[in-house]
């Protein structure tokens, strides 16, 4: 059974800690809320008000237990837990537009911030100055709305509103192994999608890059080919890998969708949130009659007769999706965090998740 938690009225950013006992989120404002979660109850641990505009991205490093947040106020903070209190350190992003997303690298010694200033800030800790400094990757023609690190800690994929999904080298001298030959900001590969690239995601082994676009499509990019699927539903905005052959994505449909690699071809399996008992009957669409009755109702009774009931657990778009241990969590702009166990996915869709 999926667990539904109503935490606030709208979620703009979400992150879980390593053992999924704590959650950091922003309720679509400048505050960072940290909760203790024991599976049933939520206890507020801290409310941090260092930013002064909406927090757009939160990432929690599993090994070093550091939280990085980025906001529309063009700043990012790195929080460390010292004696039970979260101490912020300002990061100099040197950007003149909002930050849109942030991700720790796999070795947690750098993080990437996507910005509206058409660039990505790669930030690392400078020991001499005792502060976080940044280097910029330019070459984008518009805002960067999604970033993802390859497992080798060097390659970075970006999704941008200039309709392209790109792979760059984010090599930092002094932080990364000097045997790497690619320089910072070097463009390795590029794919031109038809619309905004909402989300990019490397698979756990780094062989495949999944990206979702606003034209209701999803692409899986390998080194020698790209498989591009067009779907019948509304666009997908977030996603996560389950193993190497399953990908779960969510978006404007309010329903997580599962994709699987079968016989070397990616196919859409189906929605995870389905009513098991009754099949939702699709009434034949007779739009003229519906419109007439709606206006008729408004004239006669002063009410509109069409009241739509939402059939999914999320009442509004899904805009966060995080893979946890044995389950995944989705956050929506309805302020709900819903935890879906993998066993529910396997049972509903009758599939195997490796």
């Amino acid at each position: 059974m999926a667990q539904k938690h109503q935490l606030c009225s709208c979620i703009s950013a979400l992150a879980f800690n390593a053992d999924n006992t704590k959650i950091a989120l922003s309720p679509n404002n400048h505050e960072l809320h940290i909760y203790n979660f024991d599976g049933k109850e939520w206890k507020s641990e801290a409310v941090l008000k260092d930013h002064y505009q909406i927090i757009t991205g939160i990432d929690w490093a599993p090994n070093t237990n550091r939280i990085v947040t980025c906001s529309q106020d063009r700043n990012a903070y790195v929080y460390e837990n010292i004696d039970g209190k979260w101490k912020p350190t300002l990061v100099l992003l040197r950007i003149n537009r909002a930050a849109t997303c942030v991700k720790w690298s796999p070795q947690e010694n750098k993080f990437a911030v996507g910005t509206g200033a058409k660039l990505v800030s790669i930030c690392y800790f400078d020991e001499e100055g005792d502060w976080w400094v940044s280097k910029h990757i330019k070459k984008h023609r518009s805002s960067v709305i999604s970033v993802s690190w390859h497992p080798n800690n060097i390659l970075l994929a970006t999704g941008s509103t200039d309709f392209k999904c790109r792979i760059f080298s984010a090599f930092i001298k002094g932080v990364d192994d000097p045997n790497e030959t690619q320089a910072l900001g070097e463009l390795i590969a590029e794919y031109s999608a038809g619309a905004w690239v909402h989300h990019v995601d490397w698979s756990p082994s780094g062989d495949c890059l999944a990206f979702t676009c606003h034209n209701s499509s999803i692409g899986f990019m390998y080194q020698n080919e790209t498989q591009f699927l067009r779907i019948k539903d509304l666009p997908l905005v977030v996603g996560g890998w389950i193993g190497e052959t399953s990908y779960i994505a969510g978006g404007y449909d309010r329903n997580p969708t599962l994709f699987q690699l079968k016989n070397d071809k990616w196919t859409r399996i189906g929605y995870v949130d389905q009513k098991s008992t009754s099949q939702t009957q699709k009434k034949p669409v007779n739009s003229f009659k519906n419109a007439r009755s709606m206006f008729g109702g408004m004239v006669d009774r002063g009410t509109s007769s069409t009241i739509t009931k939402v059939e999914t657990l999320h009442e509004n778009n899904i805009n966060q999706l995080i893979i946890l241990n044995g389950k995944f969590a989705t956050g929506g702009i309805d302020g709900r965090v819903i935890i879906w166990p993998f066993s529910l996915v396997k049972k509903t869709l009758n599939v195997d998740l490796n």
Partner: protein
Amino acid sequence: MSLTQFLENPPYEAQPQEKQNIYEQVINILGDTADNKMKDTCNNLDTDQQDALMRYIYKGLENNDNSLKLLKWHGVLSEVAGLGCIMRVMSEKRKRVL
């Protein structure tokens, strides 16, 4: 040429005059198709052809060409191809114009 043949290779890269020419022929065919044949026609199209048909429908609605019939086509095609088809027409207005 039948509708399926027109939708097989939509003239995305053609000159405006040729696009206008083909558009007029397609709209005539859409206008002449009987209501009960619409569903079968839509079911026999693949994704590319469905996207092209939806683009023609929207272009026709923009120019106010036989709107009543096109609205019926829109309803039938939406049921078959889904909201994703409409999303692709709306979000790819720069690259894929018919």
